[in-house]
């Protein structure tokens, strides 16, 4: 209760890796409020009781990014990378749309579930191919997923015969556009999946083992962890989550555009993970950080459009953000800051070592 306790709590918060991500979200929202004072206004639709407003839009747009960001953070924790998430999204969306189109325009729940099941199955197969190439054959992760990134878009084009495919199915549409207790279903789904993954990974030894592979594969194998099965699982999980993201993103318009769905989403996922404070070198991950990162990206996307800049220019802004974050992670830049902070450190020489250790274990 004392002020000292409060300041340590505050200091702890600032030291959290995703603290700056939260600050950035508020900064972007503030920027929007300056442009339009009513930006944050929420209203309740009198007809169906749904919440309406820009913030709800941001939450809805963040759902697919949340999915791929969580998958990507696990893959990066093993010291790998999954560049194929965007293409897997396109494949999953294409499978779902073609399935529903061929099933006729019936709006039954069964068709929707079948489409989702098939889409996730195909995504899992693509993920398994990545996983086998990385875990059992020992290819570099980025090259095997790069091949999948290229081939995946081709597969999506073959599935849809190169055309934008639309279908109508109300239960499927509801996933992306529906509301429950005033909130968008798609966001609730995303949060539930994130919580499940988070609990499974953090309440069991799974997360620890994943991180161990990323820190030192040889040492973890000697400690009795079988890296192959875990790696395979992680890549399959990443692809399935990307498949969910694909379903979410085609569901909003009920059309799959094979060259646009999930395009450049791999950067979003990597960016979300880096914003969340996960080092790209692997060895640790933070699900909470990935969530903050995904929300920040959704806010950034909406802000850029809101400020009237062409949406095809957003990659440039994201690239700048990712470069800055990578710079902040590098030892050289950290060294500059440490040098500047040296005088207070000299006074309490035992302190600087401790917080670093905490950061690693967190």
């Amino acid at each position, binding site marked *: 209760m004392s002020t000292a306790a409060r300041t340590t709590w505050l200091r702890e918060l600032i030291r959290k890796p995703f603290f700056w991500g939260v600050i950035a979200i508020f900064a972007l929202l503030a920027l929007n409020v300056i442009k339009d004072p009513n930006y944050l206004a929420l209203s309740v639709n009198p007809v169906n009781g749904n919440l309406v407003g820009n913030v709800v839009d941001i939450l809805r747009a963040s759902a697919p990014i949340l999915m791929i960001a969580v998958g990507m953070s696990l893959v990066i924790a093993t010291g790998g*990378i999954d560049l194929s998430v965007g293409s897997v999204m396109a494949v999953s969306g294409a499978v779902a749309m073609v399935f529903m189109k061929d099933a006729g325009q019936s709006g039954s729940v069964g068709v929707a579930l079948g489409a989702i099941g098939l889409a996730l199955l195909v995504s899992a197969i693509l993920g398994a191919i990545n996983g086998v*190439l990385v875990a059992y*054959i*020992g*290819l*570099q992760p*980025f*090259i*095997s997923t*790069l*091949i*999948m990134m*290229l*081939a995946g*878009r*081709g*597969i999506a*084009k*073959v599935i849809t*015969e*190169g055309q934008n495919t639309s279908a109508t199915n109300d239960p499927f549409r509801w996933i992306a556009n529906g509301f429950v207790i005033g909130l968008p279903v798609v966001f609730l789904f995303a949060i539930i999946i994130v919580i499940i993954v988070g609990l499974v990974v953090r309440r069991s030894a799974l997360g620890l083992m994943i991180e161990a592979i990323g820190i030192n594969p040889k040492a973890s194998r000697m400690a009795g962890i079988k890296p192959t099965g875990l790696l395979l699982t992680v890549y399959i999980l990443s692809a399935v989550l990307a498949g969910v993201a694909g379903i979410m993103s085609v569901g909003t318009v009920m059309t799959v555009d094979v060259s646009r769905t999930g395009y*450049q989403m791999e*950067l979003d996922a*990597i960016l979300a993970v880096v914003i969340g404070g996960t080092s*790209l*070198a692997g060895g640790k991950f933070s699900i909470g950080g990935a969530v903050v990162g995904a929300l920040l990206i959704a806010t950034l996307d909406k802000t850029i459009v809101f400020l009237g*800049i*062409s949406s*095809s*220019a*957003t*990659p*440039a*802004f*994201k*690239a*700048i953000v*990712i*470069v800055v974050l*990578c*710079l902040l992670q*590098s*030892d*050289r*830049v950290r060294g500059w800051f440490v040098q500047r902070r040296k005088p207070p450190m000299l006074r309490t020489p035992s302190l600087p070592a401790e917080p670093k250790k905490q950061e690693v274990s967190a």
Partner: protein
Amino acid sequence: MTIVQNPQAPQTGAADAESGFAKLMSRVKRVIASNPSVLPTVAAIVIFIGMVVYGEVAYGRIVQYNTLSNLFINNAHLIILAVAMTFVILTGGIDLSVGSVIALSSVAGVMLANAGWDPMVVIVLMILIGTAMGLASGILIQYFNVQPFIATLAMMFLGRGLAALLSTQPERLADDSPILWLGEQFKVIDGEKVNDVVITPGVIIALLVVLIAFFVLHRTRTGRTVYAIGGSESSSALMGLAVPRTKVLVYVISGTLSGVAAVVYTSRLGIAQNITGIGWELDAIAATVIGGTLLTGGYGYVLGSVVGALVLGLMNVLITRDGGIPPEMTTIITGGILLIFVLLQRAVTSKRRT
């Protein structure tokens, strides 16, 4: 007369090759035995010859002047990119930004040219844009310890985004623009009807790039350092080689050559758009890997990458000739070929280690 002469030329060549065939085979065998890393390059050459033979038998009109000249004209930019990628991959790095560097450089170049700038200045600027992007990724990688594929991925999106900021419409060069001269076709040998050997200044630039790259990699200190870094970075640093400078240099080379490729490509098409070159980084990587350069660095040949680029180009020709394969399969086939070659490399390297 000409009708009889034309088919005769390849026949005499074939006879010559047949007499020396056994000799050649034993020589190839000896080279492979002494240096297994040559195997993928040899495989690429065999595949290229196989594709030519198959195409000639199945579709015809492959081994003739205009098809082969067009193969070079249409893939001049890819050859340049493959050479650029070879430098980077030899050091064990990767450059994913080449495609979007081309987009940025060509959109900027065409807009400047249309704004009335001097064409020479425009061409130099287009190349310098590539140099700047390459320098940026090189500095990020060498001095800030960013992984190569992350740094160049960021550059890839930066380039695409900046190109989109400039324009999202196709930008067309004026019909009388002097830059188009680089894409103009000159007849070298006048065959019957359209069966001519034609060449463009763009192809000459590409061949010059290949020659210079070959010289730099095999005959200079810089080239030896490039190979050494790929073999073992720490060992080459301990040996006193200029590792930091060379590592930045390969990305600068890659960026610069992407700028050159942008000039060659734009001069051939006369149009630039912000979506130009999507997926070309993969074509360039595929060409390099097919040509026998190890993705882990240290082994590889520039001439192999050229063969790799021609294999990809010829594959496109065959797919178009066949007509039965949907064009969207092209990316899957490229991916499949790349995968096969990466697996082949894996097998070769693991054999060497044991």
